[in-house]
C-alpha cells in the first residue's frame, strides 16, 4: 500500500512541476471583447488546476471546456453557440457573440448583489484572529482600564464643539458616545469587556485617529483605525530591580526570544496583556536568562522536558457525569475538540466523573464515551439533532434565550436560524415554567430565525421585527451584542 502512495506522490510532484512551468495563467489575459465577440484565449497545455480556475472565474462549464480540449470546433452548450479556432503554438480561441447579454436584462438590485459578491471575493472583509495584544500608548493616561471600565482621553482640540468616540465597541456609532471637555482635552468612560477594539474620535464630524496611540490597523474604509486592547491578564515578576531588560514569551508569541518587553514599576516588572480565551504556556527572559514564573504554580512540561508556566484564560466549565462507579474510562468528546475520542479523559470522583475545561464562548454539541459506549449527558435536557445524531448541547457564554410562550400541548419545538444554518433538526427547545426555552450564544450582529412547532414553521410571536424571505413568509430578526444598535 505504501508503495502506491509513493508513486502517487511522485506523480503529484511532477504535476506540480508542470503547473509551475505553465504558470502563464494571467486572468487578465484570458478573456477579451473584440468586435462583438466574447473571446477566451486558452492554452491547450493547461491542466485541471487551470481549468478549474477558468470555471471559477469565467463560469465556463467543465463540460464545455472538455469539448474544447477534445478538439471540437463548434459546441452548443446551454443554448449558447461557441466556436473554437486554433491560433498556433498550442493556443486556441473559444468565442461566441456577446449578445447573450440581451436575453435577460439585469435589473439594478441584481447588479448590486453581484457587486457585493465580487467585492467580498476580494477578501475586503477578512478579519484577523490574533490571540493576544499589548497596548502601545505614547501618553500614559490616554487609555486607562480597570475593573472592566475603560477611560479614553484625547488631549487638545480645545476649540471643538463636539467630540464623540466611535469604534467596534459601539458599532462605530458616531453619535452614541459623547466625550466631555475637561479644559485640556476630551474624556469619556465606558464599560468594556476584555478584548480587542478598534476606534477613532469624531471631532466636529471629522474622523480623527488617536494621536496618543501607536497601534493602528487598516479599517474597512481603507484608512487606519486606532487599536486598543482591554487586558484580561497581567504578567508580574517581582524583584530584578537591576535587570536591564525583562521580556515574556510563549506559545502565543511563537516562543520568539525577543519577547514582549515588560515595564519596570519600582520593585517589579509588569505587562498587561489581552488574551483570547484558551490555554497558553510562557516563560520570562531576564537579561536573556530563561525562567518560569516564580509566582505561578501552574507548570507544564514540554516534549524536551522543559518546565513552562501555564495559563488558562477564560472560565473553565465543569463537565460532569454522575454515577458509573465501575467504569474504567470516561472520555468527553464534542464539537469543541473535533470529536476527539481520547483527548479529554475525565477524572473519577466519589460521585462520578468530571473535567474542568476552558472553551471559548460558543454553542457546542458533546457526548460522553463510557468504556467505549457513546451517550448523551443525562443531566442536560438540551439537545440538538435527533436519533443517532442526537447530542447534548451546551451554550458556553450564553447571551440569549429563545423563548416561546404557550403551545403547552406541542410535542416537538425547535428553533432554527442563521446561527445554525437553518437546520430543521436544529436546537430542540425545552418546556419550562409554561414556556419553551433554548439558551444560546449568539455572536454580536444580526440573526434571523423561526420556531418549528410540531413541524410547522412560525415567526416569533413575541418579536415585532421580521423581514421578508424568499418564501414570502418572513423571518424573525434579532440583533445581539455590542454591534446591535
Amino acid at each position: 500500500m505504501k508503495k502506491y502512495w509513493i508513486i502517487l506522490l511522485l506523480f503529484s510532484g511532477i504535476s506540480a512541476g508542470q503547473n509551475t512551468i505553465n504558470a502563464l495563467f494571467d486572468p487578465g489575459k484570458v478573456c477579451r471583447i473584440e468586435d462583438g465577440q466574447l473571446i477566451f484565449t486558452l492554452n491547450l497545455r493547461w491542466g485541471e488546476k487551470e481549468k478549474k480556475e477558468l470555471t471559477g472565474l469565467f463560469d465556463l462549464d467543465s463540460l464545455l471546456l472538455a469539448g474544447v480540449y477534445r478538439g471540437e470546433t463548434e459546441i452548443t452548450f446551454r443554448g449558447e453557440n461557441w466556436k473554437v479556432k486554433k491560433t498556433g503554438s498550442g493556443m486556441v480561441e473559444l468565442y461566441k457573440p456577446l449578445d447573450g447579454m440581451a436575453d435577460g436584462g439585469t435589473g439594478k438590485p441584481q447588479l448590486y448583489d453581484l457587486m457585493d459578491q465580487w467585492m467580498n471575493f476580494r477578501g475586503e472583509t477578512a478579519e484577523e484572529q490574533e490571540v493576544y495584544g499589548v497596548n502601545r500608548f505614547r501618553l500614559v493616561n490616554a487609555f486607562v482600564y480597570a475593573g472592566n471600565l475603560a477611560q479614553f482621553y484625547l488631549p487638545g482640540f480645545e476649540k471643538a464643539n463636539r467630540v464623540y468616540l466611535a469604534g467596534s465597541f459601539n458599532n462605530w456609532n458616531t453619535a452614541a458616545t459623547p466625550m466631555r471637555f475637561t479644559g485640556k482635552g476630551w474624556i469619556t468612560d465606558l464599560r468594556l469587556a476584555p478584548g480587542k477594539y478598534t476606534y477613532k474620535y469624531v471631532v466636529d464630524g471629522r474622523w480623527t485617529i488617536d494621536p496618543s496611540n501607536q497601534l493602528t490597523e487598516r479599517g474597512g474604509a481603507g484608512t487606519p483605525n486606532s487599536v486598543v486592547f482591554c487586558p484580561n491578564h497581567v504578567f508580574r515578576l517581582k524583584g530584578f530591580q537591576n535587570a536591564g531588560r525583562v521580556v515574556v514569551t510563549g506559545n502565543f508569541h511563537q516562543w520568539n526570544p525577543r519577547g514582549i518587553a515588560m515595564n519596570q514599576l519600582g520593585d517589579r516588572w509588569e505587562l498587561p496583556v489581552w488574551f483570547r480565551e484558551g490555554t497558553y504556556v510562557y516563560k520570562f527572559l531576564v537579561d536573556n536568562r530563561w525562567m518560569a514564573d516564580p509566582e505561578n504554580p501552574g507548570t507544564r512540561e514540554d516534549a524536551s522536558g522543559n518546565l513552562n508556566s501555564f495559563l488558562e484564560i477564560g472560565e473553565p466549565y465543569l463537565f460532569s457525569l454522575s454515577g458509573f462507579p465501575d467504569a474504567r474510562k470516561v472520555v468527553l468528546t464534542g464539537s469543541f475538540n473535533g470529536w476527539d475520542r481520547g483527548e479529554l479523559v475525565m477524572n473519577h470522583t466519589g460521585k462520578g466523573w468530571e473535567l474542568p475545561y476552558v472553551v471559548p464562548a460558543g454553542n457546542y454539541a458533546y457526548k460522553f464515551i463510557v468504556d467505549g459506549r457513546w451517550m448523551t449527558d443525562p443531566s442536560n435536557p438540551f439537545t440538538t439533532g435527533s436519533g443517532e445524531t442526537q447530542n447534548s448541547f451546551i451554550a458556553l457564554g450564553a447571551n440569549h434565550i429563545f423563548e416561546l410562550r404557550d403551545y403547552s400541548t406541542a410535542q416537538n419545538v425547535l428553533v432554527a436560524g442563521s446561527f445554525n444554518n437553518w437546520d430543521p433538526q436544529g436546537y430542540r427547545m425545552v418546556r419550562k415554567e409554561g414556556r419553551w426555552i433554548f439558551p444560546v450564544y449568539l455572536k454580536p450582529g444580526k440573526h434571523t430565525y423561526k420556531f418549528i412547532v410540531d413541524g410547522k414553521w412560525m415567526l416569533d410571536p413575541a418579536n415585532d421585527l421580521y423581514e421578508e424571505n424568499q418564501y414570502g413568509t418572513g423571518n424573525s430578526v434579532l440583533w445581539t451584542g455590542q454591534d446591535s444598535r
Partner: protein
Amino acid sequence: MKFKLHIVACTVILFTLTSFQISEEVVISLPGDEVYRARMGEAGSMALFPLTEPDTDPVIIPLKRAGRLFLFDAMVDGESGNIIFDSGSKSVVLNSTYFRNRSKSVKVNSSGITGDVDQVSEITVSSLAFQGLEYKNLTVHLAGLGHIETKKGVKIIGLAGFNLFRKHETVIDPLNNELRLYRLDADGNRITKTPDFIPDEQQKIGGSGNILFLKGTIGDKQMNFCFDTAAETNVISSHSGKQVLNTLTITRRTTLKGAGQSTAEVLFGKMNDFSIGNHKITGMETVITNLSALTETYDTHIDGILGGSFLEHGTVCVNFVKSRIGISFTKENQK
C-alpha cells in the same frame, strides 16, 4: 423574481494561482425589485429641507464604510441605525423591518419598469435626524433592506440620496470619509467664507431630479453615466458598442439564470481608456451588463454607472443652486 447565481467561490485566486479552490453553489434570492421601485419612486422624491441645523458651517457628516457602501448614523422616530448614502436614489427609503407597523399608503409610480405593477409603499415619519440636522414630517418609501443588512452585517434603517441635501453645497470626500454640507446664499455661493472647492472637472447638472449624470468618454465615444454612490463598482452597458467594449479587460464572467431559459450574462473587468474632462483614469473596476431595463427608468439614456470604483479617485462637489457638479481628482500623494 428569483435568480440562481452560480458562482464558484475562489476567494484568493485573483492573487495567487497556487491557492486551493473550493466550489460551491450560492443561491441568492433577490428581493430587490421592491427596493428598486422604492428608490426610483416619484412620490417621495421631492427635495427635503432640514428644520434644525447645527451652528457649524460646514456641517460634517462622518461616513462609515460597509464594503464600498457609504453609511451614516441617523435616528428616525427613535429608531437608530445606519442610512446608506445613495446618490442613485430619488427618495428616502426606510427598512420595512423597523417601520412596517406604520400606517402606509400605496402609490403607483409615474415611471417604472415596463410590464411590472410598479407600486411603492409610503409612510410618514415625524423626524429624521443626524449630526444636528433634523427633518420633520417626511413622506418616505418603505422597502425590505434586510438582505443588505445580512450581507454587510450592520443595521440599515434606510437609504437616502440628494433630496436631503439640495439646499447645501455637498462635498463627498471619500478620502476623509465625510460629507461636508456648506450653507449657500440665494445665488448658490457659500455663506461662510471658506476656501472654495476647486474642481479639476466641472459639469452642468441636467434636469431637476435628485439623480446626477456625468459625461465621460471611453474609446473616444462620449458616454452618459449615472453617478451612484450605492453602486460598489462602475457599470458599463453591454450595448455601448465595439469602440467602447474593445478597450476593456475582462477578468470575470457569470451567468444569471432567470425563469425558464432566460439568462443574463454579466462580465467584470477593468476600464483601460476612460476619461472625464481632461482627466484620464485607468484600471477602474467595472461590471459590464445589459442595462436596457434600467435606462428607461432614468428618463434619459444611460451608458453606465459611475460608483465606488470612480469615487476612489476623487472628491465630488454638488451644488444644486448653481446646477454644478465638480470633481477634484485625488493626487497620488494624497491616497
